[in-house]
Structure formats: structure tokens, C-alpha cells
């Protein structure tokens, strides 16, 4: 290294130390003030217990209403909530990378297969909310060991179609493999769209079941492919394909489909309508507590779960994303769904996440190689 490089290195050291110090100072001040971001801090008046006893909750969440829920919980309890709001994929990647030293207190995303895997790895704290009153669907979605809790449910898939262009409406999944639907059906890519694996697993569960295996389901998707199935990355892309006329029928998550019908005014060329094919697979939004939480944080996390399952919490969830994730069917007794959401599909199923979760990698790889 020449003398000039060393001089530059010395300058660098000064700049680096100065900048990091400034940055750290900035962080500290931001953390001690009411942050304008999704982080929520306790207001002095709301704190009912000594400040030292309160520790911030770290909520990893991929729900459109997570930020407003964090604020509402803080306002109610005085417990600060730091929300890490992102897509499900990066959050699960982060949790996997943090495994030897978890930093999250709660995880709240759509789909229970990942929670079954986390439960098998011993990462979830068993907790059953004493104050919550779940309905039949909610109770069916609860795992036996109460390692996580459903807070609502959507279904995968809703079949959204352009009624301005087509009149045929399928009555079963098998109908989609017939000539009337050749080249007209689209769905999401399970390697890019989180809710799509539960849909594929749901069809496999329906056709082959846990005893019959996945072969019958694979054969169904092969038939769909032979009939011109088109695969798009995510819900938004499949909807776009429907809007542009690349497909006439799209298999997407119910909240996205209902949101589209609420947002779009019907025209002579585009009139989205929804039908649910038997059986629709329930895709619950699920919350779980990190087993590595200390006693204080674990108690606070339990309070958060209680709040999410209370009528007050459910009302807040309805306000966060009214044309997206808030369009879920409640699983709490006495809570009604958001206006505009039709009633629950008449024929639905819940797949066992402990059976289908571990098969995800195998099925997605097969789909990648054979259907896309």
C-alpha cells in the first residue's frame, strides 16, 4: 500500500467514525421520539405499568393492516410495537437466518404451512387466548398444540372471470380442463406467490388426499397445462393478464379478487365476477409468538394476540387495507366481514399444514419443472 493510500485510509477512518457516530445518534434520537414511521411508541399517559417493565414488541408482519394494529395496540396498552412490514418471503428468510438468535416477538402472515414448519422446529410458543371466542371455522384452523392462532381467513383460489367477454362459468376444477376453457385460464407461480402453494396443495388434497398422495393432483395440473394454462408471477400479474385479455379466467387469492371487483367499475369490455369452485382451500391469516421471547415480551405478545382476536382489534383490522387484506372472513364470533365481501364459499376445506407444509419444496420444484 502506498503512502497515498494510507493517507486516504486515515481520512476514511475519520469520515467513517464521524458518520457512524452521527448515524447512531440519529438512530437513538429517532427511537426515543414518536417516530413518523410504522414504529409506534408508548404515550406517557397510556402506560399503566412502570416504564422499566415494558419492552417493545417486534412484529414481523405481511398484512395490510399490521401498521394500524401496532398503533392501536400501543394506544390501548402502552406497549410499543415495532412493525417490520414486508412480504412473507423476506420475513421468513429473515427468521430462518436469525435462527440462532431470534429478534422477532410475533409473526403474522397469510398461510399456516410456514407456521407448522416453525412449530416442528420448536420455534413457536404455545398459547390459546382465553378471551377469544372462535367460530367453527376458526376452531378448525387452530392447531392441536395452539402453537399459533388464526385471526381471519381468505380462500385460495377464487376464480375471477371477465363476464363481459365470456359467459361459460365452470362448476368444478375439472371443467377448466375442457375445450371451453382452452388457453383462457391463468394462475400464479407458486415460487413467487406465497398463497399459491396452499392452493396447489389443496387441489392435491382434494384429488389424492393425504393417503392417495400427490400423483392425482400432478395429473390434474398436467391436464390444465395441456389445455393452455398460463402462469403469471403473483395475484397482481394474473389480474393484469385478465384486464388485458390475455386470459379470461384467473385463479387468485379471494381478497385480491374481491378487491378488484370493488375497485373496478364494470364496462362493456371488462366486468370482473367471482365464483368459488368446490372445494376452496382456506388460507388463514395466522399469528404466532416466538418461543425465545423473554417472559415480559411473551406476556405482551399474548396480549397482542388477545387484542387481534377481540372485536376491537378486528374492527381495526378492517380499516387497514379495505380493498386488500382487510377483505377477510372473520373467524371470531360476533364479528361481521367488511361490507362488500360476499359470504364464505359454501364448500371449503382446510388442509393439514403439518402434512402439506413439508411437501412444499418438492411440489413447487415439480411445478417449476413441469407446468410453468
Amino acid at each position: 500500500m502506498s503512502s497515498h493510500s494510507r493517507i486516504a485510509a486515515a481520512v476514511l477512518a475519520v469520515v467513517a467514525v464521524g458518520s457512524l457516530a452521527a448515524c447512531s445518534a440519529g438512530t437513538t434520537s429517532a427511537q426515543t421520539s414518536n417516530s413518523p414511521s410504522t414504529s409506534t411508541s408508548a404515550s406517557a399517559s397510556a402506560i399503566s405499568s412502570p416504564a422499566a417493565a415494558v419492552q417493545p414488541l417486534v412484529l414481523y408482519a405481511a398484512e395490510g393492516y399490521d401498521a394500524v394494529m401496532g398503533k392501536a395496540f400501543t394506544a390501548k396498552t402502552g406497549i410499543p410495537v415495532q412493525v417490520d412490514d414486508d412480504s412473507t418471503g423476506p420475513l421468513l428468510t429473515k427468521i430462518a437466518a436469525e435462527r440462532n438468535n431470534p429478534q422477532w416477538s410475533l409473526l403474522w402472515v397469510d398461510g399456516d404451512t410456514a407456521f407448522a414448519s416453525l412449530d416442528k422446529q420448536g420455534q413457536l410458543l404455545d398459547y390459546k387466548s382465553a378471551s377469544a371466542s372462535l367460530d367453527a371455522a376458526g376452531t378448525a384452523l387452530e392447531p392441536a398444540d395452539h402453537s399459533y392462532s388464526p385471526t381471519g381467513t381468505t380462500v385460495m383460489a377464487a376464480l375471477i372471470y371477465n363476464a363481459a367477454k365470456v359467459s361459460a362459468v365452470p362448476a368444478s376444477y375439472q371443467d377448466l380442463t375442457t375445450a371451453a376453457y382452452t388457453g383462457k385460464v391463468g394462475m400464479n407461480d407458486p415460487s413467487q406467490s406465497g398463497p399459491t402453494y396452499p392452493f396447489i396443495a389443496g387441489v392435491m388434497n382434494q384429488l389424492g388426499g393425504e393417503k392417495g398422495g400427490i400423483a392425482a393432483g400432478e395429473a390434474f395440473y398436467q391436464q390444465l397445462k395441456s389445455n393452455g394454462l398460463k402462469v403469471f408471477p403473483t395475484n397482481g400479474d394474473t389480474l393484469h393478464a385478465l384486464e388485458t385479455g390475455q386470459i379470461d379466467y384467473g385463479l387468485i387469492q379471494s381478497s385480491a379478487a374481491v378487491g378488484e371487483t370493488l375497485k373496478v367499475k364494470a364496462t362493456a369490455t371488462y366486468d370482473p365476477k367471482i365464483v368459488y369452485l368446490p372445494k376452496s382451500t382456506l388460507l388463514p391469516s395466522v399469528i404466532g409468538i416466538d418461543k425465545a421471547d423473554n417472559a415480559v415480551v411473551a406476556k405482551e405478545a399474548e396480549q397482542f394476540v388477545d387484542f387481534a382476536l377481540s372485536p376491537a382489534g378486528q374492527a381495526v383490522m378492517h380499516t387497514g387495507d379495505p380493498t386488500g387484506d382487510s377483505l377477510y372472513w372473520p373467524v371470531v364470533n360476533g364479528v361481521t366481514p367488511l361490507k362488500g365481501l360476499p359470504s364464505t364459499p359454501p364448500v371449503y376445506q382446510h388442509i393439514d399444514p403439518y402434512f402439506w407444509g413439508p411437501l412444499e419444496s418438492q411440489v413447487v420444484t415439480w411445478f417449476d419443472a413441469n407446468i410453468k
Partner: protein
Amino acid sequence: MTRSGSFSGRLARAEAPRFNLGRLRSARSAAFSGFWLLIVAILVVPILLFLIVAVSPALLDQGPQWFTLSAFRQALNGQLLVAFVDSTVVGLATALLSAAIAFWLAWVVLRTDVPGRRLWTGVVFALLLTPSYLIALGWERLLEPGGVLDVIGIPDSGLRSIMYGPVGIVVVLTVKGIPFAYLAISNALRGLGREFEDAVRVHGGGSFAAIRTAVALVAPGVWAALAIVFAESISDFGVATTLANDSHFLVATYALYNAIDAFPVQFPVAAAISALLLVLIVLALVAQNRALRGRSFRVLGARSRPVERAQVRPVPKWTNALGLAMLLLLALGVPAFGAVSASLIDGLGSLSGSHRWDLSNYRRAIVSPDLAHPLVYSAWLAAIAATIAVTLAVVCARMLATRGGTPAGRILDFVLLAAVALPGIVFAAGYIFAYNLPFWGAIRLSLYGTTPLLLLAYIATALPSTTRVLVGTLSQVQESMVEAARAHGRTSLQAWFSIVVPVIARPLVTAWLLTYTATLLELPVSQLLAPPGKEPVSIGIETALGKYDFGGGTAMEVLAILSALLVVGAGFGLFRLLAPIGWRRIGRAQ
């Protein structure tokens, strides 16, 4: 005064300079150690810890085995080998095309009077900021069934089948590679005085001979461009998950993406694929070193003469102008169209919507909580990261530019390119492995989940490309200028600031702006390392897109890009206003 006292006094005076020299050496040695400590901390440790998971998952709680090669067995299947061949071919094609176009562009902009050349400084930065998804989106809006070309009745099925495949992938990656290649090559070209061109002319050479000589003399810049674009291309995620995925063209990063995105996450398999990607980088470095070995490129000295802007004859002048316009249309027009159609025109290319101009997305974006505060947060981080990264990059570029190379320089070169070759999300996972160890908590130095760690990761992400942008210029600076200053009594520090800084001032400003703009919208590292409750602007945009608010998300993206372009304009404007005239003259044509 006693005799002995007098002797002591003399001895003290004689010892003083030695003592100062010793302190200076200690300070230099400490700075040298500090530099390597920082490189090890921000680059080597995260990369190594991630790669080690491939053979020892138990070390970081990613599996039960302490030593296994099973991840490599899983990774090395027939599909992945095809993916590696595809990635290599795409990387080579992209690097060659980007470097060739960038050299032509730099020559036209810096050395000729072709109309439209002044636009390109801004265009290069706009391209740097444009995410690959927006470029791909622009093409899709044009070519998709029911897209704009279909609507206006232009048959596009042939072009569609070409663009939805390897050709489209190379086109999009080349557009993303051109700015990196341009900045590396143009900085080197600025340092090339008129005397070399004159020498060619004196010996009867024409324009092409002059260009050929210039290519040879700016070889470090050209090779820097080839290496950085190759590494960026083989590690690209955006195109891998869009155009490559849609056209069933398997590239290595997609296999890596599948290993990380599936649950349970397969970090060992991702690490094995990453290790194989690094093999490609080693091959690229070997090629670079063989090409440059034993040659000197120190052309920037006290006798360098300002170049004269060539007065091009009408036919070639307007041919080149047409070429610039075509490139502008292809590189920026298509993604701009994608952004406009998505954010400004209601329902363009779809069966729904009024197809009228509409600013509602921008009105929503401006008041969105996902834009204003996150943009300010990201802007501060980008500015700090750019300042530190450019300072570090000067040191790195200086080491890489050492003639013949040193072992330390070669190691540094590999580490820097390895950081580029590893996709951002992998790099960020390495940061979690390294800085979330319980050990840090035990010594009360937990950086994970804090803004300073995010900042360090931004610096590490930016350092390779920033270094490559500067290495061309620093390869040209003649040591004799500094030695002359020292011979005339200047200290090392004075010589550095009075001789070297003026020479590299403009490339430094360019590198700072490059790093600022590239960091502002960085996504994968932000996703894994942003502190809970702190939202960089890229995550805010991603959140909007995730809610199917495509118009609003794209409007936020456009506003963020415009804010960055304002900073670029201010940066160059301040340089023009404040820098001494001598600093501004270097590299400028008359």
C-alpha cells in the same frame, strides 16, 4: 550550559525527527490495519459465513451436520448446470455489449460535437436509478397481447417471441450495464490527453486508429467495465424472476432464489450455488489479469494536454446523433413508457379504466406515509454511505491500480467482485449470520437491527462498483507528479491534496453521485437489514406494489427517481460553481 547538557540537547534535537517519523509510521500502520479491518468486517466475514453454511450448516444452526457436501450434491443437478451455462453466456454477452456501447457513448460525448451529447450525463444516472423491473415492464406494456402495439395495430408477435427469451434478457441487462460501463470508461477516457491522439495522427493514423489506440490506453477502465457488468449480470435477480422466468430461460440466480424463497429456507443449497457463482468470478478476474499484466497505463501526468473536441463531418455526425437517439429511446424511452403507462394514464393497455391522463396516483403518492419519511431516511443513508464508500473506494482503486498488482490488491479485487456476484439478498443473509451472533450481545455490541449495520451493508454493496468507476482514473495518475511535489518540499498529505485530488475530483463527484443514486432505491439488503419500524423508501414502494397498487407504487418510484436526479443535478452544479477552474479543466475537451 554544561558540556553534557549541550550533548543532551543535541541528542534530543537529533532524536525528534526520528520520533516523529516513528509516530507517522505508526499512524500509517494503524490506518492500514483499520482499512483491512473494515474490509474484513463489512465484506469478508459476511461472505465467508454465508458460504461456510454450504459445508457446515450446524455452525449457524441451519442444519444438523458439522461437515457435509450434500448441499453441493443437491445444487449440482442437470438443471443447475444448464442454468450456469445460460448465466455465463448471458453475462459475457451483456458485458461485451455494454462495454462496446459505453465506449462509443463515452467517445461521442467527450470527444465529438455530435448533437444531443449533453443529455447523456443525466441519462446515465437516470438509467442507474431505473429498476430492471421497470425496464422489463416497459417492454411488456409494448409487446404483451392486448398491449400498446396490438392496440395500435402493429404486428408484434415476432418481436414478442424474440424479447421474451435470452435476447430480451440480454437487452434489459445491457441497458442496466451501460451506466456502470460508461462511468468506468468515461473516467478513464477523460484522463487521456490529446498527445496520444496527436501521435497517431502524426504517424498517419486516421480516426479509427486513434480510437484503437485510445481503447488500448484505457484498457483498465474497459476491463473494469467488463468485470463489473459481468458480475452484475450473473447476480441479477430482477430479470431472473421476470423475463427469464416468463420465458423459461433458467439462470443460476433463479435456482438460488428458489432455495431461499421456499420454506423451510435452504441456506446450505443457496450457499453452494453462491460458491459456484464465485468460480465464474475467479475466471473473469483471471482473464482481466492476463490482459493487463506487465503493461503500464499511466497516461495522466503534468504534460497531459486538453483534448480538442472533434468537428465531425455531417454524415457521421448525424449518424451518431441518430444512434444516440435510438439508444435513448431503447434504454430510457421504453422504461419511461412503462412508468408513465403505469402511473399517469388510467388503465393504459387494459380493458378497464378511462385511458385518460390522470395525476391521482401522484396525489396519493405525495401524501402516502410510505413515501415522504422513508425517502428522507433513505436519502440520509445514501448520502452517508456514498461519502464513506467513495473514500474507501479511492483506497481500493489505488491498490487495484498498482502496476503489476500486489497480493493484497488481488485479494481485494476478488473480495470486491465476490460481493457483486452474490445477489443482494444472499449478501444480506450473510450480514445476519455475522452480526446476529449471540456473542455480540454478550459484549454489548449488537449492531443487527440498527441503522448503522444497514449503513455498513449499503457501503459494502456500493464499494465494488464505486471502486471500479475510480480504478480507470487512478490507473492513469503518474507517480512522478506526486514525487515532484515531494521533492519540492510538500508532505505526503499536501502532495495528495494538491496533486492527486484535483486530478480525480470530477471522477470522485461522479462516483459519489453513482453511489448515492444506487443506494437510494436499494431493495434486497434493505428488506433483511432495515431496523423494525424504520422503512427505507424501496420497502415503501414494495409495500404499495404488494397491495396491487401498481399505479401508486410506480408513481412513488418515479418521484424517488426525480428526487435523486435533482441531487445529481445539484452535485454537478456545485462542482461547476465551487471547484477551481483547473480541477474542472481536466478531462474536458476544448
